[in-house]
């Protein structure tokens, strides 16, 4: 144990260098800064509900339009005589939407004909603020239509309820999931489940990328600095040497991934606290979050798949000659990781043909990526199959590493960028 501890400390000291610390700090600071900028932009968007108005009509329905707009937005009357002048003034006043009520607007409605309103979007940056402002346009039109039709109903169908006439149907949404009826919109439930499904693969993906790179680099450094041969002739078991490398990589990658996710969360959810808490309420009320048993199973699944990735990288990195070829050597593991990573966002694995499904199941990283969905949808057989498969795969890979470590391949086989060139 004392010798193993010495090896572990040595590996950590080798891995923790200035570059690693710098990238660690940059990741946290970068996401935090981006998150803060996003948050302040979101606040600006919420605060700045302003709209420009050009009134060329003096009729009563124009007044209705103005009143409706004033209830929702800060209305600025735009001065000018031509469209160019209105747009120039709006642009200079930083107003992104302008409603123009043309002359004769009220008369058209009074005559029972559809009246036209012109809505101009002022584009300055194509940024998020403008994209969100555009969604405001549809709410403007809906609000104006609702106000005017309410007034028309009151005038022309006295005694009738305008609310009923404009919206005779009311809806209540339910979602049937895992034998339970959830009173919530499918959009909200889907959004929560997607958030869970996306978050988990991202963590695993980051963990594996960091860990694989560290292991391959550590092995590459041993060969590049010509220290491996000396280490292999010391009275320390080969298993200790290799596990010290793996465990040190896992420790650092956990810290790294934690920092990354902390920053990422700050970035992702900046200014969306309200929406999140709403989702969290639904999740709590309807048990959409993983229960203890699910968390334990997920922990086992993610640990086994991480171990599989590490063992695979270790096998490949045994043959690398230097740190540069080490980076290349992890490519096969990354490809295996990327396939389910991207497919988990787009493909419903249960809808695949048996052959395609089997192929997906053979990729060890498929199982944690789909775990949340499988668990929530009650596909426990698939989860247990995945865990069993990962256990078997890990046993085989460990046996292979031990076998390889006792052969000459460690010193005689080579993957080198120099030779490839």
């Amino acid at each position, binding site marked *: 144990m*004392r*010798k193993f501890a*010495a*090896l572990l400390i*040595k590996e950590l*000291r*080798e891995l923790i*260098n200035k570059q690693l610390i710098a990238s660690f700090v940059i990741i946290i600071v970068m996401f935090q800064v981006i998150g803060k900028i996003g948050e302040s932009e979101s606040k600006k968007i919420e605060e700045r509900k302003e709209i420009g108005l050009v009134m060329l009509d003096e009729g009563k329905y124009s007044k209705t339009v103005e009143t409706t707009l004033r209830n929702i937005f800060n209305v600025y009357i735009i001065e000018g005589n031509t469209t160019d002048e209105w747009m120039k003034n709006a642009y200079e006043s930083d107003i992104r939407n302008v409603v123009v009520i043309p002359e004769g607007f009220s008369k058209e409605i009074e005559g029972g004909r559809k009246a036209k309103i012109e809505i101009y979007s002022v584009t300055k940056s194509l940024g998020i603020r403008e994209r969100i402002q555009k969604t405001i346009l549809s709410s403007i039109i809906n609000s104006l239509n609702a106000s005017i039709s309410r007034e028309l109903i009151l005038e022309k169908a006295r005694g009738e309820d305008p609310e009923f006439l404009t919206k005779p149907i009311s809806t209540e949404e339910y979602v049937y999931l895992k034998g339970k009826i959830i009173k919530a919109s499918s959009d909200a439930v889907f959004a929560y489940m997607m958030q869970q499904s996306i978050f988990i693969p991202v963590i695993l993906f980051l963990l594996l990328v960091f860990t694989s790179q560290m292991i391959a680099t550590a092995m590459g450094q041993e060969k590049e*600095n*010509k*220290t491996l*041969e*000396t280490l*292999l*002739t*010391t*009275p*320390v*078991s080969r298993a200790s040497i290799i596990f010290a490398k793996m465990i040190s990589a896992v420790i650092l990658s956990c810290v790294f991934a934690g920092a990354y996710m902390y920053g990422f969360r700050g970035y992702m959810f900046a200014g969306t606290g309200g929406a999140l808490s709403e989702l969290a309420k639904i999740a709590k009320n309807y048990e959409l979050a993983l229960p203890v048993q699910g968390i334990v199973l997920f922990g086992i699944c993610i640990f086994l798949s991480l171990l599989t990735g590490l063992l695979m990288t270790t096998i490949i990195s045994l043959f690398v000659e230097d740190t540069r070829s080490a980076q290349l050597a992890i490519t096969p593991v990354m490809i295996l990781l990327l396939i389910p990573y991207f497919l988990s966002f787009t493909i419903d694995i249960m809808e695949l043909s048996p052959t395609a499904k089997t192929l997906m199941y053979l990729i060890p990283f498929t199982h944690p990526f789909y775990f949340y969905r499988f668990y929530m949808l009650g596909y426990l057989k698939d989860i247990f199959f995945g865990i069993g498969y990962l256990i078997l795969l890990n046993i085989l890979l460990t046996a292979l590493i031990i076998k390889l470590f006792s*052969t*000459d391949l460690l*010193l*005689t086989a080579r993957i080198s960028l120099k030779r490839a060139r």
Partner: protein
Amino acid sequence: MPILEVNSLFKNYGKVQALKGISFFAEEGEIFGLIGPNGAGKTTTLRIISTLLTPSGGEVKVLGLDVQKDASKVRKFISYLPEEAGAYRNLRGIDYLKLMAQLYSDNKKEAEMMVSRAIEIANLGDRIYSKVSTYSKGMTRKLLLARALMHEPKLAILDEPTSGLDVLNAHEIRKIIKDFAKEGKTVLLSSHNMLEVEYLCDRVAFIHEGQIVEQGRPEELKKKYGVKNLEEVFVEAVK
């Protein structure tokens, strides 16, 4: 009983036969030199004895232990210094020695003794507290040799110990090796520097194209071939 026995050792790399049945032995307190040109099979032989490579045939015994079957036991009694060995560049010299001492020792006290001995052998003064990455080639080699000898191995296997070093550093290294053998320890070294071998070794074996073409005491060999130095012995032996 010899400290090292090599009997009919073969090693193949695919179709290439690197060793073709070589045999030799080394006694306690002896410096044994394996001499030959590049690619003759010296490093392969040393790697097999160091438990790094598996032989294709024959047997190697260190203190009566088979290097294949009892590899983990053998590693306790040997130390190996590869030709182009390096140390962990992020560590200071002293930390490197402490790390290696921990791997060879069973307790803290033993480790401390090994480090003290290594500091003495390396003789790097205050530079032992500098990072390895700042060392010259000669300083690194002395540090590595100190590492190889600090746990007082029964058999020290040194591959080209003075390769690439300047005259002064090479001289210092040779002195360290001589002193170590005087303590009753066995040294097996490889070299293609005939003069160095003649100065250092009690007995030598000439290896050429995977075969030992001649072996014995330097003086006896020179007498046998009627030549002035080992270089000429080698030339005559491979004819």
